[in-house]
């Protein structure tokens, strides 16, 4: 038969009786007003993330202390981003933990990414208060695996970028007009409850999620 599976499937669907397409009834996602940041923090912490309020000037130092206290020795960063540049300049040299750049394709540094780095630092495009989620749109400069392979993921988010809900964020930022290769919402460290509904963290992704909220006051 010359017809393709595609043609046959579509023909069967088209042969079915037509049915009216209902309108979407009114629904409004929750709004938190001035309480958005507090809600974001509470929800993030409920899903086991570690939230710190930082300023634009002090976050690299704060982060170094946090990571050093955890005994982290190798930190992955994105040198071509603004945050990466700030991190590198504040870090100076000879300071522990050591910064490692994600500056080549994954194929050329798989061993480092999969087995060696202990933490990675990325920006988040925003935050969602309702669910305590970070919005990440990874880029060529700040690749996808940074928030996934290392045992600790550090995400920076501007307080002003924390919105009420996914629905509002998507609409306000015009996502439907052009989606990136990958967009991801992250709400806590990797977890599972597959064994007797007992929560365990870090099953495949990061075991810890550290969120640095850059406060508005410090602008």
């Amino acid at each position, binding site marked *: 038969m010359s017809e*393709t*599976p595609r043609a046959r*499937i*579509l023909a*069967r*669907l088209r042969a*079915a009786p*037509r*049915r009216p*397409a*209902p*309108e*979407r009834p*009114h*629904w409004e*996602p929750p709004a938190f007003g001035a309480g958005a940041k507090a809600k974001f923090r509470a*929800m993030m912490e409920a*899903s086991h993330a570690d939230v710190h309020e930082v300023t634009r000037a002090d976050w690299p130092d704060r982060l170094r202390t946090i990571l050093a206290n955890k005994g982290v020795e190798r930190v992955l960063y994105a040198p071509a981003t603004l945050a990466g540049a700030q991190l590198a300049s504040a870090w100076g040299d000879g300071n522990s933990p050591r910064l490692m750049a*994600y*500056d*080549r*394709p*994954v194929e050329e540094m*798989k061993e480092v990414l*999969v*087995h060696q780095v202990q933490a990675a630092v990325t920006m988040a495009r925003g935050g969602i208060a309702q669910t*305590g989620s970070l919005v990440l749109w990874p880029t*060529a400069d700040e*690749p*996808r*695996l940074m928030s*996934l*392979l290392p045992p600790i993921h550090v995400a920076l988010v501007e307080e002003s970028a924390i919105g009420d809900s996914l*629905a509002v964020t*998507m609409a306000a930022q015009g*996502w*439907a007009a052009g*989606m990136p*290769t*990958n*967009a*991801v*919402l*992250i*709400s*806590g460290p*990797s*977890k*599972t*409850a*597959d*064994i*007797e*509904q007992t929560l*365990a963290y*870090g*099953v*495949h*992704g*990061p075991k810890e999620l550290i969120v640095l909220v850059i406060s508005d006051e410090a602008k």
Partner: protein
Amino acid sequence: MAADARISNFGAKAHIALNDPKLRANFRRAMDGLMSKRAAQFADPDEWTALRARGAAIRARALAQLPELLERLEANCTANGIQVHWAETTQEANAVVLGILQAAGAKRVIKGKSMVTEEMHLNAHLEGNGIEAVESDLGEYIIQLAGEAPSHIVMPCIHKNKAEIAELFADKIAGLAYTENVDELTAAARAALRGRFADADAGISGVNFAVAETGTLVLIENEGNGRLSTTLPPLHIAVTGIEKVLEKLADVAPLLSLLPRSATGQPVTTYVNMISSPRKPGEKDGPRAVHLVLLDSGRSRVYGDVELSDTLRCIRCAACMNHCPVYTRVGGHTYTFTYPGPIGKILTPQLEGLDCAGDQPHASTLCRACADVCPVEIPIPDLLVRLRTEAVKPSAAAAVKGGGSGKSRAESLGWAGWTLMYGHPLAYRLATWGMALVGNWLPASAPMLKQWTSVRTKPKFAARTLHQLAREKGYGHE
């Protein structure tokens, strides 16, 4: 286990499950937990009502435009660089996936959790062709090690307790001592699978929502294995049923507010992974090729009946099975096929045919718990009744595969007799008078009474009929 069995045998399997105290305890504990966590998420009935009405309309709206949306999805995915394939049957879908893997020279595959690939029995097909497929979701990994099928569509190894998993891991994972510590078991799985992700030639995943408007595949999960499977290997193949399409990207938000809350009582899953294209020039990671396989496998036939096509609204949250008094007591394997519980009881007979799964619509008390919790308002009990009818009296359009196969001479005669008796006062009086007279003499082992009395006391017939009693009390007609 389910892979070879093509005929449902619910009654016999339920009997075995009901007599397994360990299995029943494992399910009871899990379902109690899931029910209370879901209830806490939807404490505000007004919010639930509005959100669920929106969710149901979004799904109904997408289905009403299904052929157009599938074409739009294909066009937008293709424009984004995702290669789209169509498959009418699971065999065809298996062949498509195998073809893509062979063309890429892939030998090792890492899999994210996907019920559609369970429906296809994809792993067995790949292994039969020399390709190793490793499940990476912890629950799926556990049952793959055990050589079993999932017993729940969200928590596949829910039928196993900690001790059983501890034994399995000690037996199958080299160098691991027996431990019931969940953190240690989880760490062992992480260590065992890390290298598998890195070495995989391809990742295979399912899809939760496919957005026609933007050509985006939305995948949700908690572990990160889904993101790894779709990001680290050089090739990603996503497989989905044709019904998973959504019209607008904005439709994702309310459905995401329904799905994880209904499924596991979480406000949202740890990861919501939205994939719209393969790696672009200059990007440092992500697969260089992404394929989407659209599987029909009986869904277009379900679509042909407007009432039954509500089945296709399902977003696979499993709330119906978590709340089902039957599922909770017998567990997922009793249902033989991939989709257990109330959604399985309406989906399986339609996909596989009433001739091989016709007993499933009867494995229900029609208590409506499933309909009450369904986040997209699928009228599951009504569809169960419709399928029971189709099994004995198929509609003119022969809506369901195997329709009419449940027809039996004895049952038809029984109902014909019942109709005659209730339609004619004289026949009714004669029959009830006769039962009052000789009913108690019938042995418990009499045909048609035997099944009832095997687990219950034989009913005791009153010496006088209701009509006689009423007359004695002085009631006349009407």
